[in-house]
């Protein structure tokens, strides 16, 4: 069993309510932070912890906090990004649904550290029932003196408001989220200025993911240094992984980032192996935007070393032979799955979700979907594969926000690792309508060149 800092108490009956949560040690971090610490020392602890943003980018949270501007007389805001929309990702939903007070507790401590008296949770519109769960938790916290005016007699005031989005993946990008919170279309802003200088209503703003803010609770309770001892290298603490696709036990798991990818997939404590006794063909380990890997490169790096479930190991080999930890949305594909069809599905997603501001993304995502559609339905040409490669290259890095990159990477990785499957589709258009390419050689051991 690995260490569990966030979900250890998720299964205790009644933990969703204040009374049980408090009895189980909840809100201790608020008492410690507000009574024994000051904002600077809290930021210091978070820096020491090595906590990296859990939304996907993995940026050090403490450093992000230290960037917030503090102009005299201008209110600052903390905004919790609960717009979880990256395909394969459903960890924040789990955390908010079953442990709402853990998020509220983390938000109070973080609001104190950043000097936010009005903190917002921006939650995706589809999670409509979770809004009620969070508002109940907020009301309970308030009734018990942990929110509102003069919290615990320390003079600190804080309100938390839950804002519902309305269906737009792009609002998970922090500046689009801020635009949306201001009642506008979710068009990302050009940076700089960064939100830490000019965010919501032009005020200094920090936007953090749900899991990141929940992790502040154990960091304050145990201290940043202790937290940093869990995990390995720059992958400190624990990470929530939402596992889905063709596995026996889909669900949300908390890992301490020292477990191998192979153990994560096959052990009964986690995914429980591939469903229906099938074989593993491929995996998208960190949400749909990160590069897909064939089974052989997923379990071992190009150097033949075991691959682990952490930031460094998952990205070992760069995009040539590695992937990314991303948001922790772990999507497993079995031997019966078609890479072309899967890539088409994701391309359609990004075309649908492009905000339309930048032409490389707006036009490119549409063309990638059309070309993939042709290949999937037997009307593709060999030159289409090169055309797809060309289009994704022209999107990547040429847009205001990372949605362009997020749309380009899955297509690039699919072609990079599964080009022969695309070619088979093009060369066997009729057969490809009847059956899939199958496992082929994608699980075969990789040849590792031996150096003398």
């Amino acid at each position: 069993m690995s260490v569990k800092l966030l979900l250890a108490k998720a299964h205790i009956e009644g933990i969703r309510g204040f009374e049980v949560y408090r009895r189980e040690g909840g809100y201790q971090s608020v008492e410690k932070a507000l009574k024994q610490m000051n904002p600077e020392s809290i930021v210091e602890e978070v820096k020491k912890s090595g906590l990296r943003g859990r939304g996907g980018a993995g940026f050090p949270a403490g450093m992000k906090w230290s960037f917030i501007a503090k102009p005299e007389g201008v209110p600052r805001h903390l905004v919790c990004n609960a717009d979880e929309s990256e395909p394969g990702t459903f960890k924040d939903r789990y955390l908010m649904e079953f442990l709402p007070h853990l998020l509220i507790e983390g938000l109070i401590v973080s609001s104190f550290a950043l000097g936010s008296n009005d903190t917002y949770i921006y939650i995706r519109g589809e999670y409509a029932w979770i809004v009620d769960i969070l508002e109940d938790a907020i009301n309970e916290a308030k009734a018990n003196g942990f929110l509102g005016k003069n919290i615990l007699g320390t003079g600190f005031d804080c309100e938390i408001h839950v804002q519902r989005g309305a269906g737009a993946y792009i609002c998970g990008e922090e500046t689009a989220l801020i635009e949306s919170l201001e009642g506008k279309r979710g068009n990302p802003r050009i940076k700089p200025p960064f939100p830490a200088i000019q965010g919501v209503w032009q005020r200094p703003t920090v936007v953090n993911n749900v899991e990141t803010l929940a992790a502040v609770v154990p960091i304050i309770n145990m201290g940043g240094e202790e937290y940093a001892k869990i995990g390995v290298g720059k992958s400190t603490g624990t990470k929530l992984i939402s596992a889905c696709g063709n596995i026996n036990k889909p669900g949300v798991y908390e890992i301490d980032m020292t477990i191998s990818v192979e153990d994560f997939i096959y052990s009964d404590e986690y995914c429980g192996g591939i469903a229906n006794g099938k074989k593993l063909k491929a995996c998208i380990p960190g949400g749909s935007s990160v590069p897909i890997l064939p089974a052989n490169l997923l379990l071992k790096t190009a150097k033949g070393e075991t691959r682990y479930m952490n930031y460094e190991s998952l990205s070992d080999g760069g995009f040539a032979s590695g992937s990314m930890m991303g948001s922790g949305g772990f999507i497993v594909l079995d031997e019966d799955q078609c890479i072309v069809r899967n890539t088409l599905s994701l391309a359609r997603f990004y075309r649908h979700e492009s905000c339309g501001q930048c032409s490389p993304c707006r036009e490119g995502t549409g063309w990638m979907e059309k070309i993939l559609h042709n290949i999937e339905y037997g009307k593709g040409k060999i030159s289409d594969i090169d055309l797809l490669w060309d289009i994704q290259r022209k999107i990547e890095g040429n847009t205001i926000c990372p949605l362009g990159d997020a749309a380009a990477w899955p297509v690039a990785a699919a072609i990079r690792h599964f080009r022969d499957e695309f070619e088979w589709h093009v060369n066997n258009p009729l057969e490809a309508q009847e059956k899939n390419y199958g496992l082929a050689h994608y699980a075969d051991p990789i040849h590792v060149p031996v150096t003398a």
Partner: protein
Amino acid sequence: MVKFSEAQLAEVKRLVARYPEGKQKSALLPVLHLAQDSFGGWLSSETMDYVAELLQITPIEVYEVATFYSMYNTKPVGKYMFEVCQTGPCMLRGSDDIIAYIEKTLGIKPGETTADGLFTLKTVECLGACGYAPMMQLGKHYREHLTKEKVDAIIDECRKTAGVLN
């Protein structure tokens, strides 16, 4: 005529109070949700103009938001909207078959509404239920681990509820 009740107006007031003075436009998304729920499940231009007036913003500011976000319906929809996820992770678990089954059972394609006005089928992109796929959103809640039998049961349930309400 489109008009909120006193209770709904109080809710609008509560929402607006969450933002700084003069930033009432921030309440637009939540107020549009309230309007859509209150006025027949969609946003007519009359409804959008009313919201603009309430929040003291121009109608175009409401239109551009209403047309950007996928949850706002700018055309009438059925009493029950089956929003079935079709993105990668759901597809791996058979969402295509579920969509085809609903099409066949209700005799409608995605985007269409049954002649009796009861059901609308809509395909949607990832709703964050990948581990519980295939799934659909029905009103405020998710229906997960869908099978053909479960779809039948949901359709029956909707027909019964509609019968009781009429």
